C-alpha cells in the first residue's frame, strides 16, 4: 500500500497560485453565498495572530460549511439543498492588517455522531508560511442554544470553548467576529485532529 504524501508549508508566495492576486484566474472567493442565497446572510470577520502577538498578513483561510438547512453540497450528504448554486467553500488571503472576511449564510444544524445534532458551525483551515500543515478549527456562534448539546464542543475543555465562539460585532449588524490565535496561552484557539 502506498504511503501518504507529507504536507509542506504553503509558503509566503501562495497568492500566485491560490488567490488570483498575480493575474491568474480566480476560482475561489471569500463570498460563499451571493445575496440571492436562501438563509440568514452574515459576514465573518477576524484576524490571525501569531505567538508573538503579531498579526499574520501572509496567511490563507479556507472555510467549509453547510447551507442554511444544515446540508452539504457533497455526495456523502446527499440531501437536497436550498440552492443548487451553493458550494459551501470559501477562501480568503489575510490582508496587511492580518484580517480576513467571508460573506456567507449562517449554516443550519448538522447531523452528528450517533444520532446527535451538531450546533451551527463552520470548518476552518488555516495555511501560512511557518505552518508545515493545515490547522483545523471550527467557528461556532456565541449564544446559540444548540451549542450546549454540541457533541464536538463537549470534547473541548470548558475553559477553552470560548476560543471557538464567533461574537456578534456590536457596531455592525449581521457581522460576527472570529479572531484566530495560532499560538498563545489560555487564549490560543482550539485546533482539532479528526
Amino acid at each position, binding site marked *: *500500500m*502506498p*504511503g*501518504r*504524501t*507529507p*504536507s*509542506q*508549508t*504553503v*509558503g*509566503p*508566495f*501562495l*497568492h*500566485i*497560485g*491560490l488567490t488570483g492576486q*498575480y493575474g*491568474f*484566474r480566480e*476560482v475561489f472567493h471569500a463570498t460563499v453565498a451571493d445575496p440571492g442565497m436562501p438563509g440568514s446572510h452574515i459576514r465573518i470577520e477576524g484576524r490571525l495572530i*501569531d505567538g508573538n502577538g503579531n498579526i*499574520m498578513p*501572509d496567511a490563507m483561510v*479556507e472555510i*467549509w460549511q453547510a447551507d442554511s438547512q444544515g446540508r*452539504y*453540497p*457533497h455526495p*456523502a*450528504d446527499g440531501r437536497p439543498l436550498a440552492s443548487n448554486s451553493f*458550494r*459551501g467553500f470559501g477562501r480568503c488571503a489575510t490582508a496587511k492588517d492580518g484580517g480576513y472576511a467571508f460573506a456567507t449564510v449562517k449554516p443550519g444544524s*448538522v*447531523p*452528528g*455522531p450517533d444520532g446527535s445534532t*451538531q450546533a451551527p*458551525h463552520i*470548518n476552518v*483551515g488555516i495555511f501560512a508560511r*511557518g*505552518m*508545515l*500543515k493545515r*490547522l483545523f478549527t471550527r467557528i461556532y456562534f456565541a449564544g446559540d442554544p444548540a451549542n450546549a448539546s454540541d*457533541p*464536538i464542543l463537549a*470534547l473541548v475543555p470548558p475553559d*477553552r470553548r470560548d476560543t471557538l465562539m464567533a461574537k456578534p460585532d456590536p457596531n455592525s449588524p449581521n457581522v460576527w467576529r472570529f479572531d484566530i490565535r*495560532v*499560538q*498563545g496561552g489560555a487564549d*490560543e484557539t*482550539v*485546533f*482539532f*485532529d*479528526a
Partner: protein
Amino acid sequence: MTDVYSRAGNAADPPSLSPDYVGTRTRSPKQPLVIIPQTLSEITGPVYGHSDVSPEEADLTRQHAGEPLGERIIVKGRVLDEAGRPVPNTLIEIWQCNAAGRYIHVVDQHPAPLDPNFTGAGRVVTDADGNYQFVTIKPGAYPWGNHPNAWRPAHIHYSLFGPSFLTRLVTQMYFPGDPLFPYDPIFNSVTDPKARERMVSRFDIETTRPDWALGYIFDFVLRGPKGTPMENRDFTDQD
C-alpha cells in the same frame, strides 16, 4: 461513530513545530490538538471539477506573448489514496518561481530577474483514473532568510482537495538528487526518510519528449479509508 478516514498515515506529516524552520516557532499551537470524531462536516468537502478549469491552465509556458526562459519540463503522475485507489476529478493547483529562482510575488525582492513570460501558476483536474499533467519550466533554487546562506531546493508548490475536508493537502514537489536537500529545514521537517522521498519526483525518459521537454513523474497519495492494510499493520481496531 466509526472513522471513515485513516489516522495512521498522519504520522507522515511534519510536526507543527520544527524549530530549524524558524517560522514554525511562533506559528505552531502550544496546546494539544483536540481529537474529535469524523462527522458529516469532515467527511464532506468542496467539490470542484473539470468545469472549473481551462485546458490552457495546465501549461504554464503559454500564458504570455512569448515563452518563458528555462528548462521546459512535463510533470505528470497520478493522485491515489492510501488504499491505492485513483482519486478522479480532483482539482490540483500549482505555483512556483521562474527558472532564475524568482517569484513574481511582491514579497520576493532577491536579486534575480523576473521573466515577463512567466507567472508561475497553473491548475488541472485529474481524469477518471487519477492522472494529471502539467507543462512548465524547471524552477530555480533561491535564497531565503531562515539562517545564514539558506537556499531552498528547487520545488513546485501543490494544492490538492481530494474527496473531503480531511483529504486536503498542500505540499511541495522536489527534483531528484538536489544537493540542497541536507540543508533545507522545510524538506527535513518530515522526519521519516521514506516519507521525505515521497516528496521527490523522478526523471522519466518515457515521459521526456524528444527535442522538446524533460519528463518527471510525481504521484500523490492522499488520506485514504480507515482499515487499509497500512493502518492495520500499525494499529488494532480501536473502535
